[in-house]
């Protein structure tokens, strides 16, 4: 499968050029995150770079402790610090807005993406150093002030967590939890939807504060009395309407009933739907889904995956999928990046990576899944365990478990480089001795399997 | 480690002990890294040292060293007087002597009360938690009754009924403090009991007693250790309060008694007779609370400070 933005562009007829010229929605550059521990600094993420394009679903796959969750959390600066340290790199994010020509449906003006870039506030779109000459507003999520970050969190970038039971507040009804993001990020639109404009007169500031959920008790009392009551009721109805709408989008039966229930009254699958409704309420550009189905049963999992995919298509958002399950990611994402011990070892279109894995780790990971043809007890296990990432020396992180490891693998960091057909892989098996600058005899070969 | 020759039986024991000791030491090291905890430990070491060296630091009073000596020739001497560094009381008792031997009294009091209450509390709480059902019901209702009475008032009532003596203060405090441990350990036991390793031990076929001793108790005990440390301080605080209101024998070398007897002189400007012992009570309670909190942070980082 190819990039849907691109395919869509082609459908509209040679318009993909516009989308192509555009800088990616987000680009992670040489991200380094470390954790201070008793034993030393753990390099949890160690030089990770990737792009997320408009409208694509990118899968980030790897096993426990490979740094995939930490990478995803760094988008919203949610890595606990201390002990976490943002030791280097950038997470650049380019906020979009809905295309005004087509209203988000995809047209010539937006290159079929339904969303258009916002102009760089410094150079007004002509291109400056801040936006890498792209003319698009570019935010470095690791350095942006907390206030600006809060505007982005839940609004332009939303996140779904692995355990919906823990991510929802057990003491609040579902409605309030979804309404909260609307109050924080969409107060203007709430007022508009409620049909409240300047005719409210002197009450306007109070209503605005109410829409932002910042009213004090006295203000709420005042708005509960006749002149303001009409407006505040309309506002309440607008919130309820919007919440019900976003719940209905996740195909919850009877959303009006569900939104008044508490999380513990809902099943795991329902809770995850509520999480999704909350995440998509503000129509974010990027949805980060951190193992969204790991806590669910298989039959429910299939439904949730389908739902995310469908909503992604409708909202034309990009999705960053975090998962340990390559087979699952293959179903839901366009491209995939495989992580091991804090680094990306391979990336490419997911079908291609799944069908023809290049890196020995990816190969091992796929071979380890029991299939119908595997003889019992003869699974291709990857022997050994994940290395300790405390102050690592330059070396391929996988060398101790790799069946092909050679001297070069133990002393030089293999770079993530595309060799054939645009598929980057970080492995010396695909490099020549000259490229690496190492002795020929120290290079690994396919024949050198241990 | 493969090169280690096969140790004899004794060798295995020694090695296991060494591993356990190292683990204990590493926890200890972590506790001491916190500066406030370190301060608490320092104070405790100083006070306990003082208690142990009491006969060396001052000439013990005969026949009973725990009674204040009376120097009738030096009543109400201010601090700095020769032979009476911290002054004397209205009865001619040396304040420094009271503080030094009072630390022995406090140490004795808190050690006895805490060890007795921990023992009772752990037995009751673990019986309730481990056996569950009826036993649990009955024991916990008894605990509830004890808990429903404020501890100071309860201790006061007991001491009042039994008459004023230091031994009765110990008894009164013990009657109050065990309840807390029973509560804590019961909750822990119920929680720990659900771990798979308890089921694993049952599947092996080990006896209930063994399972309790090896699997349940060791994993339930840490909050008790923390609480016991805190109570080492609290016991002295409440004990001093009981002595202060006159439930200990007059003339006892005990901080609470000294504070109580010295307070009459405060209005007359004789601040030292009650201030120095009062300061000791404060330091003692503070030190154990600092260490207790430090222990809690290390042993169980999840619990928030109450």
């Amino acid at each position, binding site marked *: 499968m190819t990039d849907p933005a691109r395919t869509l562009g082609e459908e509209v007829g040679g318009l993909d050029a516009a989308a192509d010229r555009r800088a990616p929605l987000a680009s992670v550059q040489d991200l380094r995150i470390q954790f201070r521990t008793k034993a030393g600094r753990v390099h949890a993420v160690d030089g990770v770079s990737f792009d997320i394009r408009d409208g694509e679903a990118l899968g980030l796959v790897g*096993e*426990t402790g490979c740094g995939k969750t930490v990478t995803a959390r760094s988008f919203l600066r949610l890595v606990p610090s201390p002990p976490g340290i943002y030791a280097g790199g950038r997470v650049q994010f380019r906020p979009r807005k809905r295309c005004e020509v087509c209203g988000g449906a995809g047209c010539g003006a937006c290159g079929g993406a339904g969303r258009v870039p916002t102009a760089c506030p410094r150079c007004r779109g002509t291109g400056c150093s801040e936006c890498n000459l792209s003319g698009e507003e570019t935010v470095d999520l690791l350095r942006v002030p907390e206030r600006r970050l809060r505007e982005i969190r839940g609004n332009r970038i939303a996140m779904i967590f692995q355990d919906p039971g823990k991510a929802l507040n057990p003491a609040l009804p579902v409605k309030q939890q979804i309404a909260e993001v609307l109050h924080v990020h969409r107060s203007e639109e709430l007022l508009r939807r409620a049909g409240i404009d300047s005719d409210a007169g002197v009450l306007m500031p109070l209503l605005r504060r109410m829409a932002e959920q910042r009213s004090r008790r006295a203000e709420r009392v005042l708005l509960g009395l006749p002149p303001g009551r009409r407006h505040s009721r309309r506002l309440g109805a607008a919130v309820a309407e919007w919440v019900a709408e976003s719940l209905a989008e996740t195909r919850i*039966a*009877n959303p009006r*009933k569900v939104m008044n229930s508490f999380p513990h009254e809902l*099943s795991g699958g329902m809770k995850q739907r509520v999480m999704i409704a909350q995440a998509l309420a503000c129509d974010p550009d990027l949805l980060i889904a951190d193992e969204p189905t790991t806590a669910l*049963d*298989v*039959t*429910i*999992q*299939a*439904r949730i995956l*389908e739902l995310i995919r469908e909503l992604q298509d409708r909202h034309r958002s990009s999705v960053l999928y975090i998962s*340990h*399950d390559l*087979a*699952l990611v*293959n*179903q839901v994402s366009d491209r995939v990046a495989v992580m091991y011990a804090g680094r990306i070892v391979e990336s490419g279109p997911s079908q291609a990576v799944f069908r023809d894995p290049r890196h020995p780790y990816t190969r091992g*990971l796929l*071979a*380890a*899944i*029991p*299939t*119908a043809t595997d003889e*019992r*007890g*003869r*699974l291709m*296990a*990857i*022997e050994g*365990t*994940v290395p300790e990432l405390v102050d690592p020396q330059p070396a391929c992180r996988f060398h101790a478990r790799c069946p092909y490891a050679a001297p070069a693998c133990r002393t030089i960091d293999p770079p993530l480089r595309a060799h054939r057909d645009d598929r980057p892989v970080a492995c010396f098996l695909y490099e020549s001795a000259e490229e690496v600058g190492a002795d020929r005899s120290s290079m690994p070969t396919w024949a050198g399997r241990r | 480690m*493969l090169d280690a020759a*096969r140790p*004899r*039986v004794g060798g*295995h024991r020694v*090695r*296991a002990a060494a*591993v*356990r000791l190292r*683990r204990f030491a590493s926890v200890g090291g972590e506790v001491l890294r916190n500066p406030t905890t370190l301060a608490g430990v320092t104070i405790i070491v100083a006070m306990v040292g003082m208690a142990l060296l009491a006969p060396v630091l001052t000439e013990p009073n005969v026949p009973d060293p725990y009674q204040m000596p009376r120097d009738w020739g030096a009543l109400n001497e201010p601090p700095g007087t020769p032979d009476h560094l911290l002054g004397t009381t209205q009865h001619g008792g040396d304040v420094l002597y009271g503080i030094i031997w009072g630390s022995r009294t406090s140490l004795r009091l808190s050690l006895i009360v805490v060890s007795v209450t921990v023992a009772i509390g752990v037995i009751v709480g673990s019986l309730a938690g481990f056996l569950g059902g009826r036993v649990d019901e009955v024991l916990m209702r008894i605990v509830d009754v004890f808990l429903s009475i404020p501890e100071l008032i309860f201790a006061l009532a007991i001491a009042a009924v039994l008459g004023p003596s230091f031994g009765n203060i110990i008894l009164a405090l013990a009657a109050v403090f065990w309840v807390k441990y029973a509560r804590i350990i019961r909750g822990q036991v119920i929680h720990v009991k659900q*771990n*798979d*390793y308890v*089921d*694993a*031990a*049952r*599947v*092996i*076929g*080990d006896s209930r007693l063994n399972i309790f001793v*090896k*699997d349940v108790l060791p*994993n339930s005990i840490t909050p008790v250790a923390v609480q016991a440390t805190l109570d080492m301080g609290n016991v002295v605080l409440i004990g001093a309060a009981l002595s202060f209101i006159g439930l200990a024998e007059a003339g006892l070398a005990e901080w609470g008694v000294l504070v109580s007897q010295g307070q009459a002189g405060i209005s007359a400007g004789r601040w030292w007779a009650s201030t120095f012992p009062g300061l000791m009570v404060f330091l003692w309670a503070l030190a154990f609370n600092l260490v207790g909190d430090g222990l809690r942070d290390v042993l169980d980082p999840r619990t928030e400070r109450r």
Partner: protein
Amino acid sequence: MKTVPARAARPIPVKNRNLVTVRNLRRYFPIREGALQRVVGHVRAVDGVSFDVRRGETVGVVGESGCGKTTLGRCINGLLPPTDGGVYFDLGDDEHARLDALTAMPSEARTREQAAELERLDRTHRVDRLRGEAWRSYRRNCQVVFQDAFSSLNPRQLVKDIVGRPLKVYREASGSELMERVVGLLESVGLGRQHLYRYPHQFSGGQRQRISIARALALDPDFIVLDEPTSALDVSVQAQILNLLNDLQRERGLTYLFISHDLGVVRHMSDRIVVMYVGEIVEAGTRDDVFNSPLHPYTEALLEASPELAHDTDRRAGALEGRVPDPARPPQGCRFHTRCPVVTPSCGFEVDDAVRMLEGRGAGLDHLRGVQRRSAFEADLSFDDEEFAGLMVRVLEGPETPAEMREAMIGLTRSGSTVAIRFRDIDRVRLEEIRPAHVTSCILHTGQGLDPGDRHMREKNGG
């Protein structure tokens, strides 16, 4: 693996074919409520389960969370006493046949001799009735490996004490002999002498699971219950553990009960499969039968929902709607009928289904005053006023209601603001052998309660 290579070390006495025999096993957990903790109902975690585990084979138990598979495992390894029925260990072949004959007849039909015979079988083989030496022997021969390797090892014990503990309990060894046995066990699971003096937290998840396995092997058991042994592990480590389990089975002639929600893993490990749903077995058979030609629609849905099984094709059609029913109030008839894509009117539609359906439509259920049940299939629904009652009747008769449900409804009358609703009475479904050694409870195959000329039967079997 059909034949088990004989263990060289131990002389093998005559061995019985069936190692574990589960008959009509029920395990209910009381639900208590209120200050007096009155029992207000029961969670039927396991509700009438029967199957055999033969010596040397691996039986896989699959199902979603809450289907009762873990409770089943705990009953089998003696951690939970059954509410009814039982687990028999190591029955002789004759005894096995007798047990089947005796349990097949209703208890009041047994003669005194037959009752005494059953009592004797219970006393000598039923796990929860074993005492003394028989219990000790069962205890040694039936071990368990839990899912969560973090909670199954005592964090305050050294590895040598954890693995050596079973040997100490049975006074099999002590001193340096004990230590050598422990080292041998560790080596057999891929660990070694260097790990003796470490605490569990110093190991990775896979290594901890190896320690668990070593402990289970210490007493040289015949049978091990593996309760999701690899669910908490990464795929690459999972493969190591699965290979290890298989090697150990071959070397030691072990019999496994392999409980898992992961179909790929169960298929890889098992000779025979048992599929559970809400406390019942819905299908059981050999691995190839169940995976290649599943009979029950639930099994089909499970297979289709697993990404690792469906990765070649893009079939995603079978994802199920709805939620797993509450095991405290399991559905009537076939318990899967609330979510089944090929449901028929004879599958057990009941009042709860109608209520749930109305709820899902959001159709004025706020105006439902109360439900007066005469049975699971018959009830009066009273509404606020006649208008809503009429509306409900129209919904229940209209196209919004599935055709199967409408057909199962044999009475729907309104009088005032009350709607009387009645469905066909349906018995609980029974397992029946459809092909040799392949059983299912789906009525499309068993034909139970189904008219031979039933429209749905024809459609679905023809399709």
